[in-house]
């Protein structure tokens, strides 16, 4: 077993000037399916249960006042169990940013604390496309992982810092919803 040193060199090739004229096609990366994410976040669980929850108008109002942004009514959560014991809850949600749509899974423990956040997929688009409802619809409910190849589907955008603000808000929302359901005794 040879021990290799961490390389300390830089090597790159600039794109041809002609390539700079036209934007590259939008791209997408699938990292994990929701099933893979739940197994990663709750490795001790022996089963997962899909459950639908509806927030009452009062619950939504209280959550929106606390968070400062909209919370939808219906939530499909994955309950992680070991036998009959609830280990935690996985909420899959997505957020739309200026140039991207991120589907992510928030794992919340039975104590209401975040266990882990995993990004399931990332969709990059040109800014104007994000605002078109048709474009949004294209990705609703998509969970299949695509084969990974180096080359055309690697998302490496070097620009101004990709804001994570939407994702942070999305995580806060998921945690607050799970917390509200725990409080009402809806999660056992």
């Amino acid at each position, binding site marked *: 077993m040879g021990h290799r040193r961490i390389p300390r060199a830089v090597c790159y090739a600039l794109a041809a000037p002609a390539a700079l004229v036209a934007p590259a096609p939008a791209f997408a990366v699938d990292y994990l399916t929701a099933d893979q994410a739940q197994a990663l976040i709750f490795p001790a669980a022996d089963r997962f249960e899909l459950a639908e929850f509806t927030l009452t108008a009062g619950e939504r109002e209280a959550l929106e006042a606390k968070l400062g942004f909209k919370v939808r009514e219906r939530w499909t959560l994955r309950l992680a169990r070991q036998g009959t014991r609830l280990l935690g809850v996985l909420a899959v949600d997505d957020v739309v940013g200026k140039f991207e749509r991120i589907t992510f899974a928030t794992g919340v423990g039975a104590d209401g604390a975040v266990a882990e956040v995993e990004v399931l997929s990332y969709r990059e688009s040109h800014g104007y496309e994000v605002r078109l409802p048709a474009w949004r619809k294209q990705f609703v409910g998509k969970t299949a992982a695509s084969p990974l190849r180096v080359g055309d589907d690697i998302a490496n955008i070097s620009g101004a*810092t990709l804001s994570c603000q939407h994702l942070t808000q999305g995580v806060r929302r998921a945690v607050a919803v799970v917390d509200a359901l725990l409080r009402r005794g809806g999660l056992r």
Partner: protein
Amino acid sequence: MSARYLRRARPHLGTLVELGVRVPEAEPARATAALGRAFLALAEVERALSAFLPESDIGRFNAAPAGFEVLLSDDAARVLGAACALARESAGLFDVSLGTGPGAWSLSEGEGGCRLRKHSPGVHLDLGGIGKGFAVDRAFEALFDELARGPEEPACWVNAGGDLRVSGVELPVRLRDERGGGAFPFLVLSEGALATSRFGPLARASLAHASPGHARYVSVAAPTGLLSDALTKVVALCGRADHPLLASHGATAFIHEGGA
């Protein structure tokens, strides 16, 4: 046979961090182990460096009175040591105190490790210009180190919202046009690091000698994430892509318009 890659992404460092590794054919579990180690490293660096966490070394330093001394974590010592050297080499252009007191803090090696001392009450340290690049390095080192225990050549990368480091694989990098949208082919990075900062309207900082109201991007390709991150700030502050500090660190800078 085509190689298989494993990629994961989590929110860290105030952005989305993507890790990627080529899965070793003989021992695929090593890829998962490498990702796990790298995510742990990111969380560790975040705890040690964030100026916003009161319990971090930097948070404690910022809140303390003059005369305060703190024994630094290894991570904080590495970053501040590098920041000190860059400040000296750039004749003060690179300044993690952001003007609150470039000479009002010092490091000393002593019993138990490296100590940070505060000399005036007003000095605040902010590692925003160097910390992300360092975190990229730490995550990259964790990936590389784990993969290097196996028989295959490591191939891995870290992308923290545009701060990249890679080894053993060709990563096409695109530059985003913040105004019009769209991402344009920029370069292919196969070894080392690349960072890009935007300067101009709506950005936190502006580029020296650029007309106001004009957005510009500075990209720096360098051997490490820390250097590429820090050197974008040096280039922005002097407005020159040929600052001698770049060549002395084996780095190259590009000043460009977003997109075309």
